[in-house]
């Protein structure tokens, strides 16, 4: 067995190995309460505030605090090829099948590092401290070339056990640690470790955004000192789908059009302006015209929640065009001229000297309206609704504007950051449906244990000269069906299985799934070059066969139609309010 599993009783210290062993111990424990107790004990035993901060952050957030704006950007190919070299095995011929069998590159790396003599010979057990590992993550974030990153990885792995390497990778890539212990459990462990109420720890975490700093305040009995600070992004308030909610009184809500853009939080203090995306990344450098717009307005200290949209000639363009601006730092003037963006505010979270998120939406809206008048800021338009007819009418208008649909917001609600409740409701129309083929089945966990309930769906490219395959993947979706339908599907899958890769089955293309999705986006990293947003099962089309499926050309056509369709301009009945013509300038 692997190193972490042989000694459950180990000495607690501030080494990374102890953290890795604790994580493995949590993985190997089934009950939620026992998992929390193990983690709480670990937190309690860490002596310094700094180490507690790091440990909570590594287990709960990843290599860096989510509000730090810092990220390790490293692709799985970079660390996988590095691991293959380290183990002196062929990447294509040996590493890839191993990864496929286990369904996880980090797990494959752990096992190869453990099993292969050449890899063992290179490693000494150096007991890196949490602080050393944090510096290594900073080093990796600091370099940009693959070679440089791989050099750091090699040097680091030489000093680690296979178990440490596995968790080092999972923390670095900021995916799940896959130990059945998500951020909420880390919060519970912090509160148990230091005898504080979960509710209070949770609040401090929400408001500060950093789980590491929350742990330190909790330990030092200073949870009341958790405050919202400018330039530390707050978790966004999220909306539920109206389909899942029964509304008692529509007039408790106000309607806004749901913009087809990107959610964004702006922090402003004098000329300092920073933008944060929904996953709390600092995206300031991608949108210099927005920075310029707010920096030159002499605003009081301010945090706004709103949407970044491509806006040109009084027209809001679809999200697909905004993608040309996303993830691109310091865009050229040409790119900005082609795809200029505008920030439309719809909420205010901090004004002048204090947070406003505990005020009601009506009160916040008053502040926002006043600011918009005084400083000429674009803000969403709000519409009173009294009945379902109003919703239908506004919804149609929103679509005609090129927007996604409507948001209904409860007038008396506070800003429930980080939560998805019924105070905000979204009304959306599905983007479309495609008849796709079932290509791979993945074993589900939890209540679907044993059944195949996650699937990779394919689109037909059999007649497409650009591809050699018959089908290529277009998306992954989860099937939620009654036991009977699930049984039928799983029986059919058994008959069609041709290959088995660990928890994944490769299937003969026979089963047709009608797939519903919100939107189509370009994604150059996929084989199809397109990904679907929120794909989900609409129906299993037992009556259809592989030849009835939609083709990649159909997907391309749907995408083009979306981009090129007519949209009502914003000069009449606009979706948002803004005086004068939008002219951008760089700050």
């Amino acid at each position, binding site marked *: 067995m692997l190193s972490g599993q042989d000694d459950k009783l180990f000495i607690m210290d501030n080494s990374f190995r102890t953290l890795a062993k604790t994580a493995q111990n949590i993985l190997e424990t089934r009950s939620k309460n026992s998992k929390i107790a193990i983690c709480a004990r670990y937190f309690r035993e860490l002596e310094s505030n700094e180490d507690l901060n790091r440990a909570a952050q590594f287990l709960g957030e990843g290599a860096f605090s989510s509000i730090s704006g810092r990220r390790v950007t490293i692709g799985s190919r970079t660390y996988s090829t590095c691991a293959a070299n380290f183990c002196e095995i062929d990447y294509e011929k040996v590493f890839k099948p191993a990864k496929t069998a286990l369904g996880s590159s980090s797990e494959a790396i752990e096992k190869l590092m453990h099993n292969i003599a050449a890899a063992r010979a290179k490693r000494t057990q150096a007991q890196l401290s949490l602080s050393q590992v944090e510096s290594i993550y900073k080093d990796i974030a600091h370099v940009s070339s693959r070679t440089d990153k791989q050099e750091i990885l090699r040097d680091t792995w030489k000093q680690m056990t296979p178990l440490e390497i596995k968790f080092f990778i999972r923390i670095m890539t900021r995916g799940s640690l896959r130990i059945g212990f998500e951020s909420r459990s880390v919060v519970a462990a912090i509160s148990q470790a230091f005898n504080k109420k979960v509710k209070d720890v949770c609040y401090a975490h929400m408001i500060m955004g950093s789980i590491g700093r929350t742990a330190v305040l909790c330990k030092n009995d200073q949870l009341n000192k958790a405050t919202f600070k400018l330039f530390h992004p707050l978790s966004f308030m999220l909306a539920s789908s109206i389909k899942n909610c029964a509304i008692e009184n529509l007039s408790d809500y106000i309607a806004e059009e749901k913009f087809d853009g990107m959610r964004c939080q702006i922090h402003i203090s004098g000329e300092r302006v920073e933008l944060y995306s929904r996953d709390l990344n600092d995206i300031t450098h991608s949108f210099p015209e927005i920075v310029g717009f707010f920096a030159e307005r002499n605003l009081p200290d301010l945090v706004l929640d709103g949407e970044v949209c491509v806006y040109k000639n009084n027209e809001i363009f679809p999200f697909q065009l905004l993608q040309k601006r996303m993830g691109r730092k310091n865009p050229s003037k040409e790119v900005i001229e082609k795809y200029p963006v505008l920030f439309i505010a719809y909420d205010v979270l901090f004004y002048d000297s204090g947070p406003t998120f505990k005020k009601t939406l009506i009160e916040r809206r008053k502040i926002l309206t006043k600011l918009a008048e005084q400083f000429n800021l674009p803000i969403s338009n709000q519409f009173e609704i009294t009945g379902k007819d109003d919703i239908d009418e506004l919804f149609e208008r929103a679509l005609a504007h090129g927007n996604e649909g409507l948001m209904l917001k409860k007038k008396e609600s506070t800003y429930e950051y980080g939560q998805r409740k019924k105070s905000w409701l979204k009304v959306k129309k599905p983007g479309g449906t495609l008849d796709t083929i079932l290509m791979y089945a993945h074993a589900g966990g939890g209540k679907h244990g044993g059944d195949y309930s996650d699937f990779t769906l394919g689109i037909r490219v059999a007649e497409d000269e650009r591809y050699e395959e018959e089908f290529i993947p277009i998306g992954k979706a989860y099937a939620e069906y009654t036991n009977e339908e699930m049984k039928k599907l799983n029986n059919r899958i058994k008959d069609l299985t041709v290959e088995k890769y660990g*928890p994944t089955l490769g299937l003969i293309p026979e089963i047709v799934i009608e797939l519903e999705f919100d939107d189509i986006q370009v994604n150059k990293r996929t084989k199809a070059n397109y990904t679907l947003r929120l794909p989900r099962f609409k129906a299993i089309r037992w009556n259809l066969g592989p030849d009835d499926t939609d083709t990649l050309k159909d997907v391309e056509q749907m995408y083009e139609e979306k981009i090129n369709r007519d949209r009502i301009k914003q000069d009449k009945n606009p979706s948002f309010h803004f005086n004068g013509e939008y002219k951008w300038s760089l700050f």
Partner: protein
Amino acid sequence: MNILKAGYNGILLPDYNIGFDFSSPQAQHIFISHAHSDHMPYKSNKPVYCTRNTFRLMQKRGYKDEARVLNFGEPLQLGNAQATLFPAGHILGSAMIYIETDEGSVLYTGDYRTPPSPATEGFKCPKQVDHFITEATFSLPVYKWASYDKITDDVQQFAIQTLDEGYTPVFLAYNLGKAQEVMHMLAPTGLPVQIHGAGYKLCDVYEEAGIDLGKYEAYDRDTCEGKILVTTNSAINNGFASNVKKKRLAYCSGWATHEASRTQLTVDKLIPLSDHLDFFELIHLCKKLNPQKVYITHTPNADVVQHYLNELNITSCFLDEVNI
């Protein structure tokens, strides 16, 4: 040498009328390597060759027809070929079949394990093999088994700790071979075991072969709580010990290497205990035998084995399905 894959799991030497784990009119002489259901027949219109223990296990699992029992190491002349059985270390009775001809020698491994399971007759391999037909179930370098002592310790500790904490330990293990090996590992603890009926009826063959299975009885729903239970994965999902609320499950299989099996099967403990050899032993054995050619079966990853054999300059092929 003509070597063909035939039927679901069988191999055919058409020029010598010999079939391994395969019955069809095309083969006059049929050898059965061991009594697992994917290798043994349930009926045969002519006697099959196998070891005594394999025959007894097959009969207990429903084989109604006749067999010609062979001892390990005793050659049998079949026309212009000579056949000898070698112990395979996989389960009790499991044999590798060694065929010597003027064209050279063939070794068909069936399923095998080296170092062998102590709950078998051991493992012994002929020194000289020209055509090596080997299974390669665990043919990736992610599969490397811990030592027998280490696994035994894991099995015993799991049982003892679980009982100490007031829970009933349940070992999920295939009812022929793995179940008895787990019981053999637990025997020194002296703790009482209850085994699922399908596995229970096979245990006396093991005991008669001199393998200590400790203190055990057949599974009884009313008295099973607080005893060590041994059963299969499918039985546990179909009501086995469902009246015992406080129980912990350990999955004993080579596939327990996969972290994902923890959530797929909702088990508490993964014990990678396999009755097949691991990847490193496989490559090591090929290197030691250095045959003219290696024929690989039973694996989704023949390419990986071939890649390593190429580096050792050993010719190999994947015995893909040939429809007969």
